[in-house]
């Protein structure tokens, strides 16, 4: 399953501070959408609104509409916890649960929600998720070792395995490779390309080569100055953004002439 996300005149606030202003875009299913832009432009804030994670910060709220396959995820009767079950997330720094083994980490989406499953189902799901995250061959002999015993790149793939194990519709990646070396980065990028076969993938990145290598669509965000809201400047097919962008700002940014 894979869902289309539609953002209409979306404003994101932290209390009174408008962090992201008036975003209109459609995130296509079965594709990778990359968010690029300078630090502080609201990319991470916006990606966190897609699974209502920004609400964890006190005082954060949104205006406008955000629908997934036509369903408004900010409607009054929607439970943010259920939204997050459909929209998985991978963070900048690998964050496996330190008290759990590799296997328990993969199954944590179920275990933490008190869902019981038979041992054979659990084994099957573990293998499927770890194969899906390209990690199975590296860890199949040590599934009971702690998740934190893996290398940084492996930990990040473990986090991806944990996210895809609950079979979400959308996977959000907030700078998933910025803490990793080039080899691990390549592994995650390959994985992201595989994941788009099944999921809607949204990735925030500071690495423009990464965006141009793996994404289908690219959104460029910018900020007019400190304390000003971030805005979506241009959103188009990745080739267009990197070869022939409409906006001058975008061209300056992708060609490295920014600032």
């Amino acid at each position, binding site marked *: 399953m894979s869902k289309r996300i539609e953002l209409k005149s979306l404003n994101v606030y932290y209390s009174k501070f408008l962090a992201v202003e008036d975003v209109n875009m459609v995130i296509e299913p079965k594709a990778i959408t990359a968010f690029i832009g300078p630090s502080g432009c609201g990319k991470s804030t916006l990606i966190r609104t897609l699974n209502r994670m920004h609400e*964890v910060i006190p005082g954060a709220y949104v205006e406008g509409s955000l629908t997934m396959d036509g369903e408004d995820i900010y409607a009054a009767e929607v439970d943010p916890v259920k939204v997050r*079950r459909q929209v998985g997330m991978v963070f900048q720094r690998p964050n496996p649960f330190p*008290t759990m083994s590799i296997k328990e980490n993969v199954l944590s989406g179920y275990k933490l929600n008190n869902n019981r499953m038979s041992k054979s189902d659990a084994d099957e799901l573990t293998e499927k998720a770890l194969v899906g995250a390209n990690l199975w061959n590296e860890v199949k002999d040590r599934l009971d070792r702690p998740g934190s*015993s893996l290398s940084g790149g492996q930990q990040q793939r473990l986090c991806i395995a944990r996210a895809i194990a609950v079979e979400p519709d959308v996977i959000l990646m907030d700078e998933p490779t910025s803490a990793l070396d080039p080899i691990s980065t390549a592994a995650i990028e390959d994985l992201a390309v595989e994941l788009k076969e099944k999921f809607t993938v949204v990735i925030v990145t500071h690495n423009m080569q990464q965006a141009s290598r793996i994404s289908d669509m690219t959104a460029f965000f910018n900020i007019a100055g400190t304390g000003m809201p971030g805005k979506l400047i241009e959103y188009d097919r990745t080739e267009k953004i990197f070869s022939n962008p409409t906006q001058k700002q975008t061209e300056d940014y992708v060609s490295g002439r920014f600032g």
Partner: protein
Amino acid sequence: MATTFYGIQATATLPRWFSPLALIGSLALTTAMFVVSGFTDESGNLNLLAIAVLGFALYMIMTYLISRGVEGRRKATDRMVTGWVSAAFALAVVPLVSLAWTVFEKGINRLDAEFFTSSMRNVVGEGGGALHAIIGTVELTTIATLISVPLGIMTAIYLVEYGRGRLAKAVTFFVDVMTGIPSIVAGLFAFSLFLILLGPASAINGMAGAVSLAVLMTPVVVRSAEEMLKIVPNELREASYALGVPKWLTVVKVVLPTALAGIATGVIIAIARVIGETAPLLLAAGFTTSMNYNPLSEKMMTLPVFVYTSYAIQGTDAASYVDRAWAGALTLMLIVMLLNLGARIISKLFSPKG
């Protein structure tokens, strides 16, 4: 000196055995001086403290001068500072070791089977034991722990995970205030509470003692649990939320297990802190010479109070009372040591591996 300013070779260094030898040498020299000059007290004993202080001063001066000449100024300063730091460490450890040794030496006399198997009922001279006090201490501390650990951990969870605004600030403030209350006030509080509840005839009992200990223990548990919960990385909470786990399950299944080792250690340290409390128990639990297994009625003896009363109210055979007091102190110290050992084992077992 032979080396140039620009050289990177080290200047000559003193051999490794220099420092220990210099220290032994200075101490020996000082002792010799004292012996030769006949500088002793009336009974001919040497003043060991004076020897230690003068010997150390001699060592410092000698080391600095020799090192300055051979190794240069930087290393000489290094040696001098090392000397001061080691001396400060020794100064801190000496009273501790001396205290432990004194308690051990004097307590071991009566640390026999009888001490652990009998009470003081109808004992006026030799013999008798502290079983009633040990039982009392174990029961009271257990009840206090059962009251204050859930209360303390849940308060800490509220403060770290949920609390916001005025209420949380007020709770933090009162926890701080409670940490500072004198233990006798906790005893008075428990005593007057039970006086109101049960009347003067039966106000003093084990439960009142346990309540006074719980009053002292709760803020310590809150504080340590709060610190431990705070250092659980926020990323783990976010990881859990992102998997669609509700907040309360995140707290129960991610945050608490991650902080468990630290919380358990904190709890045991809090127990060790209250187990030696005397003043509140003297008031709230009273003292007795008889066995009392029931914390809900009658006075109850505890080890610190046992030590105090044995020493303060010496009977006909004073020496045996003093011996029992030391044995009680030693028992208490052993219990605290066991608790600390337990804390280490627990923190080893529960801390996240990797």
